[in-house]
């Protein structure tokens, strides 16, 4: 059932308005904070009002501009888009609070918060895109809007990272444009919601090219190996930006695009017949393992987080590539699970850096004694990554294994075990040293992180627990993911 609803454009519009207000009137700290926080809250409420309908399979639509003629910039909120929008707008509230605390006394705060709001606006645009071209439009805008954030420090290293980031993502964008044109050429339409735009194009010689172009294009932001190189370099950005890049906007835009390509552009039935996805699944499995090994070798907190992100994102890609209902459920729900756990980690990394000046992992030794709340948040996120039951990460691993068995791919279960072990190997020693070894070399008087940095970390850590235990509670993200799977045509219901 499709319902015309203006809220669909208001949601990205609020952040756009916020960005404009910040750019024009944002010199005053108080006003700027009011605009950003106000917009974040209004937007979250707006999206929450759409939630009950989405849970029942209602699809909200709105058509904005006839660009290009016949295709149009159009918005459409289905379960999948709703899920992504809900995750990013929830996290935007947390990240905004955190950023206000973190960016105190930094230069160019107007530019920072303006582009910050633009990023979230475009992210919701991606989530609500009704066709591939609208998705591409916001995807490209997201690239442009994150660039000033990545190079915020304007050091040579930051500028270099920015160049690398743009080179990767713009090339990816060009590939998606190629894929989009191919889809338009082959299918004559770009609109989502048919359960497979290309269903009628089986056997066309350009079909493999379209698949490779779209998967490689979105794979850049999804950090699918070997397209992941920009992410570790982009760690030079301020920590709230890293959180935004890693947990909320950029990388999730990549995996979300991949989900759209698999479920809406090609469709499960066509892909099952073509067999391209077994290659994609193999690539994702390789990325999960290889990135974990790379993470083991890192000694810097943020760099280890970056490699861990690369590994975690491929869970989502793997889930989508398996083409079974349980795997799809795991893929969708992991968008939230990874986001909340990862953003907790980044909040902790930033809080530790701002409070103690420490950025290396071995320097975390004994910090549990001085910053107990911060390190509690860290521990919860770490346990979630390892996949301990009752934490969010376990839900993903469980359903991904089930999905693998559904698809007859028993190796997925082994892969989940191996990945859990690797995650344990690179997070648990840090947890041990933080709590069970005495602090060393700390200046006297170092205490818990300031509240503006600590509160967001604790809230998101609580969310990680909530996601892990609330899979049977109606209205929680898990039920929305179930609804998304149920209403994506062609996948079938997840029992």
């Amino acid at each position, binding site marked *: 059932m499709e319902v015309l609803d203006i809220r669909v454009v208001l949601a990205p519009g609020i952040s756009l308005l916020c960005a404009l207000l910040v750019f024009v009137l944002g010199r005053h700290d108080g006003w700027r904070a009011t605009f950003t926080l106000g917009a974040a809250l209004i937007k979250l409420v707006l999206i929450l009002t759409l939630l009950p309908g989405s849970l029942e399979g209602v699809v909200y639509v709105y058509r904005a*501009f*006839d*660009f*290009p*003629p016949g295709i149009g*910039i159009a918005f459409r909120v289905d379960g999948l888009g709703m899920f992504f929008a809900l995750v990013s707008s929830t996290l935007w509230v947390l990240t905004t609070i955190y950023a206000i605390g973190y960016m105190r006394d930094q230069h160019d705060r107007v530019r920072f918060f303006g582009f910050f709001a633009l990023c979230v606006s475009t992210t919701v645009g991606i989530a609500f895109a009704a066709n591939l*071209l609208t998705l*591409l*439009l916001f995807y*490209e*805008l997201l690239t*442009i809007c994150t660039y*000033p954030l990545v*190079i915020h420090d*304007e050091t040579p290293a930051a*500028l270099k990272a*920015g160049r690398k980031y*743009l080179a990767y993502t*713009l*090339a990816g964008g*060009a*590939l998606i*444009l*190629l894929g989009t*044109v*191919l889809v*338009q*050429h082959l299918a004559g339409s770009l609109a989502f919601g048919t359960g497979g735009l290309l269903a009628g194009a089986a056997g066309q010689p*350009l079909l493999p*090219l379209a698949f490779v172009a779209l998967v490689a294009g979105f794979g850049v932001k999804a950090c699918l190996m070997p397209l992941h190189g920009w992410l570790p370099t982009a760690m030079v950005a301020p920590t709230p930006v890293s959180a935004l890049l890693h947990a909320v906007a950029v990388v999730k835009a990549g995996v979300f695009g991949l989900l759209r390509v698999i479920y809406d552009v090609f469709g499960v039935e066509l892909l099952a017949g073509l067999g391209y996805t077994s290659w994609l699944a193999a690539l994702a499995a390789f990325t999960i393992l290889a990135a974990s090994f790379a993470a083991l070798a890192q000694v810097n907190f943020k760099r280890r987080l970056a490699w861990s992100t690369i590994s975690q994102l491929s869970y989502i890609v793997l889930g989508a590539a398996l083409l079974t209902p349980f795997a799809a459920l795991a893929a969708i729900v992991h968008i939230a699970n990874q986001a909340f756990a990862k953003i907790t980690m980044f909040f902790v990394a930033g809080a530790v850096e701002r409070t103690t000046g420490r950025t290396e992992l071995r320097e975390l030794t004994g910090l549990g004694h001085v910053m107990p709340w911060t390190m509690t948040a860290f521990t919860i996120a770490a346990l979630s990554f390892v996949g301990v039951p009752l934490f969010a990460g376990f839900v993903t691993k469980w359903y991904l294994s089930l999905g693998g068995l559904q698809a007859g791919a028993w190796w997925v279960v082994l892969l989940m075990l191996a990945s859990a072990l690797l995650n344990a190997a690179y997070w648990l020693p840090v947890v041990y040293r933080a709590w069970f070894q005495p602090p060393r070399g700390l200046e006297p008087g170092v205490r818990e992180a300031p509240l503006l940095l600590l509160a967001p970390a604790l809230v998101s850590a609580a969310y990680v627990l909530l996601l892990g235990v609330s899979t049977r509670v109606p209205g929680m993200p898990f039920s929305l993911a179930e609804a998304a799977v149920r209403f994506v045509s062609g996948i079938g219901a997840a029992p």
Partner: protein
Amino acid sequence: MEHLLPLAAALPLVAAALLPAVAWRRPDAAWGWAVAVGAGLLGIVGLLLRRLLQDGPFSYAVGGWAPPWGIELRFDALSAFSLGIALVGVAVLVFSGRYAQAAVPPQRRAWYYSLLLVNLGGLVGFACAADLFNLFVCMELVSVSSYALVAAGGGRIAALAAFKYLVAGAVSSLLVLFAVGILHALTGSLNMADVALRLADVEARGPVLLALGALTAGFMVKAALFPLHLWLPDAHASAPSPVSAVLSALVVKLGVLGLARVLPLFAGLDWLVLAPLHEGLAWLGAIAIVAGALAALLQEDLKLMLAYSTVSNIGYIVLGLGLATPLAMTGGLVHVFYHALIKATLFLAAGAIIHQAGFRTLRDLRGVGRAMPWTGVALSLGVLAIVGLPPTAGFLGKWYLLLGALEAGRPGFAVALLAGALLIFVYYLRILNAFYFRAPLREQILAVREAPLSMLLPVMALALLCLLGGLFGSGPVALAALAAARLAGGG
């Protein structure tokens, strides 16, 4: 109403002739006079366009003599480019007010406006000409005034660039005149529709091929299609900035529109296959896209960068004409219009920045975006549009060209086009990086003031059109599709 069509071309020309008299006692009146004429032209073109959309293409027989004997003016979908001419014209004339005070010596200022008006009148006449001779005459009006305008600012480099431009332009004009002569000798007619009909009966194949070759080569030089572009960068970069805007946005389009006008003359010949010519044009277009972008990448001078970008963008348009499928030609033709708006935005914004700051290389201009926020925003919008980022106006041309390449069964050209677009992105990002994210090298940059309102307003208006032109682009696309259908249908 009936006489609006000849008025569109005549108004700027007559006003240009009267301008020295108007400015005789009061030199300051020249600007107001020129702006008023530009506004009048815009109004007339608007009325013509409304009639085109309501009733379809219409003709005007000059002096009441029916074609093919009399002179025919015709306003069709291709002539709708007049809107671009008028829009850019008004913006440039308004912008010139403050700019010319600094850049053009006082004794030449009246001539400067006069030449600009001649240029605009010639362009409109060219877009509406239905016979070959008027096509040539209007082209010459535009060309000769352009040579002079390049040198208007004075300076050695400008004079040299103008001379280079003159030599290349004269050769191409001669080629076109030569071809027009041949066609007249073969058919006894100059009216294009009539020539197309009569060419079918012509038995002498050699002269027909010669005419086709001369026309193509002549218009290729006018369009600065790679490798015949060598005159362009210096001329466009050393001219006063408003003139650069006119040259890059409008004058090079003469060559493309000329090709689009004359190629259909030969489409009706059953012994002549145009496919190899189209193939050649497509290849040259694709090479121009990449070569122009690469050359732009190596420039430090802001205006030279923009000039090379024009070479690259002409490549897009010619690629569209060469692929010769309806979608590809739609893309090429819609880009004729939108590139005019975008490039005018860029040159005027760059002109405002160079005028205010006094520097013109990227290194020297570092950090200027913060000193001139509004001009900076306009320039950024222009940059995003020329790169072809959706939803700006620049995206539409690329979108239809890509679809057209697939329609023609040539995905290779689609890939080349995307590669070119990526390169373009890189060199425009250098501009934004320098203006916003690099620490200034020159202390003076910090003290630079925002451009005066009479410069800022046209720049902002054009920049807004770059954005809105994309969002509300169905009208231009529909017109371009109409023109493309007519081209593909022949005659």
